[in-house]
């Protein structure tokens, strides 16, 4: 079978599934629609494996380096001679990896949802939206054109909006869906302006032409772009930072992270797919896609990204330690982990010996998808069993949910970076490349990975230990094969994904690299991780007063972190007080009162003028005669004056 055709099918199948389910969903049974969606996604996952095999082992290499392969491309919307939106499908190491991740996690989530969402009223629409999301996300990663990516970017945003608002009768779900869309839309404004600037400077929207024009030495496009500066950064850096702003919105970087924790209002499998494994890494992917330009022509922008990433990583990790809603803990953990990927890109450079951060970032993206999806699906199983998101309603669940318990533990070990689980390898790679390029960021990363281990095990102990197991020993996992199978498969990924020799497949320039790995170097992070886990055990292994005392002793810090450092309140102030009350309301008032008032005043002015002069046309002959005489007299007077 043909590789190009399979790649196209990967994209088309979810779309067909979406159209079919949304148009004809009412005619078929809900169970059938779940089955259709799952079968389609499993098929695309298989196809992705096939394409990935083909790309990495068959046709992807040219002269020892992986090169891009365009499966198809056509001009969709021609703006002018230079600029057009092309739709196409490109296969290169990062897009193929993303295809694998997306289809695989999406297939797991589709299967899992058959049971988890069973009996929901709009079950079919749920599957339709999931398929729409999968299609959009796949379209995003295979984009050949900046604008194509922007299009799918928006589509991803709207499917996320529809899924967060799936329980649309709940006010909190409506608010969360709106917030997610509007915050990311705001960030996309930066993306859009960045695209306009890039396209104007490079005279193309095609990714690969653009990258070439903006990296080649002596390129006239590049010279025009870097000749002007603003506030110490070149125009190109500004354009790229604006593009990054879009990425920061989707990837929930500080200060645009506020939508992600609220997005947990959506069904839990959705959180696993969209808000953990795939959509939220779109920003990382975007920076990776343009990495060559960043690294060669705008290293200053790249280092800003590194600092934003490092700050976000720590910031989110601290908040995660205080949250009590288990999905919110995971949400902050996601923010923190994506920030790891982001700063790994930020510390990398171009050229041999500089670019291992790129590979490390992609590696972490890959492993994170497995263990974070697993954590969310595990959390879903827990929520399914106890019907609550709050930690206080949990504890001692290890007997009731044995499979969930084991898989959750594996995922926690993976994210905490304990060898030999997946997260260990990718996090080591990130830390060691940070160590080589930027010490400050390295230490931030190191401390954060300790905090990560702490809050993950706080979560784990509070769910599965903390209290004595339920006396009846009742197993809640009875008929949930469709929930257990994805958990088991994903846990295999969380355990073994780190063993893949990632550097030989994915690197910034396509040439195989060796990821740095030193045994001595790993001692410190692992030691910190283990200590943090022991600390979590001491605090949360059994029910005790210790955590409460501890949080009381650092009450200020604890309260600030618990309230997410009041960032939401600041946003609320800006939007409600400033945008609505200071701009929106006056604009509406001004329009109704002043502008409209002027129009009305003109009308009433006309009426009153006519009122006052209407007496002149009274129909009374005497009056007319008088005006007539008066006129004649005036004319006569004029004549007399003129000819005197």
């Amino acid at each position: 079978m043909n590789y190009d055709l399979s790649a196209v099918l990967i994209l088309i199948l979810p779309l067909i599934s979406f159209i079919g389910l949304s148009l004809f969903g009412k005619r078929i049974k809900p169970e059938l629609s779940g089955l259709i969606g799952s079968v389609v996604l499993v098929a695309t996952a298989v196809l992705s494996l096939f394409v990935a095999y083909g790309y990495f082992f068959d046709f992807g290499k040219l002269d020892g380096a992986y090169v891009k392969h365009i499966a198809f491309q056509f001009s969709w919307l021609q703006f002018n001679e230079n600029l057009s939106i092309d739709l196409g499908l490109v296969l290169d190491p990062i897009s193929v990896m993303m295809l694998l991740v997306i289809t695989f996690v999406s297939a797991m989530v589709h299967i899992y949802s058959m049971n988890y969402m069973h009996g929901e009223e709009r079950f079919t629409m749920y599957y339709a939206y999931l398929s729409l999301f999968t299609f959009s996300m796949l379209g995003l990663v295979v984009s050949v054109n900046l604008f194509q990516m922007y299009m799918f970017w928006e589509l991803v945003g709207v499917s996320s909006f529809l899924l967060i608002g799936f329980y649309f009768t709940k006010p909190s779900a409506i608010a969360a869906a709106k917030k997610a869309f509007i915050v990311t839309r705001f960030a996309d404004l930066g993306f859009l302006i960045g695209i306009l600037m890039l396209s104007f400077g490079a005279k193309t929207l095609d990714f690969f032409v653009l990258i070439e024009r903006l990296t080649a030495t002596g390129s006239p496009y590049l010279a025009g772009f870097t000749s002007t500066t603003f506030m110490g950064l070149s125009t190109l850096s500004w354009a790229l930072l604006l593009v990054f702003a879009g990425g920061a919105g989707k990837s929930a970087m500080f200060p645009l992270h506020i939508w992600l924790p609220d997005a947990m209002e959506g069904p839990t499998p959705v959180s696993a797919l969209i808000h953990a494994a795939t959509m939220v890494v779109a920003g990382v992917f975007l920076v990776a896609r343009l990495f060559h330009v960043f690294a060669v022509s705008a290293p200053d922008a790249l280092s800003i990204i590194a600092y934003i990433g490092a700050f976000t990583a720590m910031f989110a990790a601290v908040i995660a330690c205080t949250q009590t809603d288990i999905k919110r803990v995971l949400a902050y953990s996601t923010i923190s982990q994506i920030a790891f990927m982001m700063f790994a890109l930020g510390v990398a450079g171009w050229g041999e010996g500089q670019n291992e951060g790129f590979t490390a970032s992609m590696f972490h993206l890959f492993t994170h998808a497995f263990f974070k999806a697993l954590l969310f699906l595990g959390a879903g199983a827990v929520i399914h069993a106890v019907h609550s998101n709050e930690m206080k309603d949990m504890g001692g669940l290890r007997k009731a949910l044995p499979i969930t318990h084991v898989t959750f533990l594996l995922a926690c070990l993976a994210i905490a970076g304990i060898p030999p689980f997946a997260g260990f390898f990718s996090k080591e790679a990130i830390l060691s490349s940070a160590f080589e390029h930027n010490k400050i960021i390295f230490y931030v990363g190191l401390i954060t990975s300790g905090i990560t281990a702490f809050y993950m095990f706080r979560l784990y102990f509070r769910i599965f230990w903390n209290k004595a197991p339920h006396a009846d020993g009742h197993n809640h996992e009875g008929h949930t094969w469709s929930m257990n199978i994805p958990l088991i498969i994903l846990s295999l990924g969380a355990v073994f994904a780190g063993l893949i020799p990632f550097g030989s497949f994915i690197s910034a320039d396509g040439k195989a690299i060796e990821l740095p790995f030193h045994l001595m170097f790993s001692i410190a992070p692992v030691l910190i991780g283990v200590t943090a886990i022991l600390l979590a055990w001491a605090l949360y292994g059994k029910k005790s007063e210790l955590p409460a005392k501890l949080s009381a002793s650092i009450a200020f810090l604890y309260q600030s972190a618990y309230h997410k450092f009041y960032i939401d309140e600041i946003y609320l102030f800006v939007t409600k007080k400033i945008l609505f009350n200071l701009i929106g309301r006056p604009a509406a008032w001004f329009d109704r009162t002043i502008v409209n008032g002027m129009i009305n005043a003109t009308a009433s002015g006309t009426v009153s003028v006519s009122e006052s002069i209407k007496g002149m046309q009274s129909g009374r002959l005497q009056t007319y005669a008088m005006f007539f005489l008066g006129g004649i007299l005036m004319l006569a007077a004029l004549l007399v004056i003129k000819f005197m």
Partner: protein
Amino acid sequence: MNILSLLILIPLVTAIGILISKKDQTIKLIALLGSVTQLGVAIWTTLLYMSLRKAGATGDMLFQSTIKWFSPLHIFFSTGVDGISLTMILLTAMVVVAGILVSWKIVFQVKEFFFLIVFLSLGAFGFFISTDLFMLFFFLELAVIPKYLLIGIWGSGKKEYSAMKLALMLMFGSALVFLGIVGLYYASAAFGVPTWNLQQLSHLKLPIETQRVLYILLFTGFGVFTALFPFHTWAPDGHSSAPTAASMFLAGISMKLGGYGCLRVATYLLPDAARELSWIFIILASIMIIYGAFATMMQKDLKYMNAYSSVSHCGFVILGIAMLTKAAIMGAVMQMVSHGIMTALFFAAIGMIYDRAHTRQADELGGMLKQVPFIGTAFIIAGLTSLGLPGFSGFVSEMTIFVGAWEQTGIFYRVATILACASIVVTAVYILRAIGLAIWGSIQNKEHLKFKDASWSERTASILLIAGVVFIGVFPFWLIQLIQNDSITIFNKIYSAAFAI
């Protein structure tokens, strides 16, 4: 016989048919039949046009014909179309069909209502095919009067006030347009025989002083129809008082008459003044876009919301025309079509909700998606088109305008473009707010549990319009093919230094 005369003949015959038939049901069927035939003819004309172009037909306009109408004043009934006017004709035909379908349940003075609607469409079709300025103006006026009656008789709320306001303000716009075209007519006398003909006028090089005055007059005059700031206040009142079909026409077609006039008459015939003075309208357009969007954000009445959002969206049309680049002009035309279909869909959905709930206050509604899923979905699709979601027409037209506007260098143009871009965020805020309040959520009023979902006619109308936005949104290259050359013609005209006399 010229195929374009069919476009006038069919509405005329339909109108006469409506007048002579007695039963309400017959009247509705005649109106529907006439409008569907018209849509068919419009599509047929477009296909014919495209095949002629493919076969290598040159000339700015095709299917031209000229009949002497009043020779002492050199008025000819001359017709001709290019891709841009055909696009507008297709839009009009589509909105008319949808408008007639959503009015199916009208019981009060059925004959008059459908007569006026068909009459209104006659004015719009005549406007788009005319190449003689006097006839153009004639048809523009034909399209104003029925609106007054439609709002005054079948409207709701402060309908007399709104009808009067709308008619007076549009009349004011027409007066400016009339002054402008009379000025053109007399200015052309300096080159020999005076003329109203669009193409003959386009070859004349008028003195810049004359151009300046006429440009301002014509652009403002037509601008009033497009809700140009500060002459937009007819729009919120007019739309909200109008019956559903009239709102659809008003926003879907009537506002496009203005945009088309600004492009085809003001900018095309007075290129020097356009280059010199278009900055004025860039400022006004930016105000429309941003200020309209912020004003929309505060509206609770769904029709007011859509009316204000129309002001904001039509700001894009003005912006595109005033930016004077190829892509921006093309984008302006696309935005006219896109907004026409989208806003018709929006008003149709709002009308369907209003017919059932007798309220349009977003906060008194809620749970519509659950109770009336079809109508709720139509509303959401209209909303997503409005906020520029890819896959629907709004995205392609707005992006084309943005890219086109960005070609104009200089800080002034950049600021205007960035402001326009920023409106997409505000648009998202108000659209999602309306969806969150009215469509999502749960039913607040027990009465609303009795609502029935859309009837067959409402469904057909919505599906037709949704098909329109999706078609443009997914296959924009088709529309581009139709309008690209004409946009380039206008662009070249604006920037060509030498004029043949």
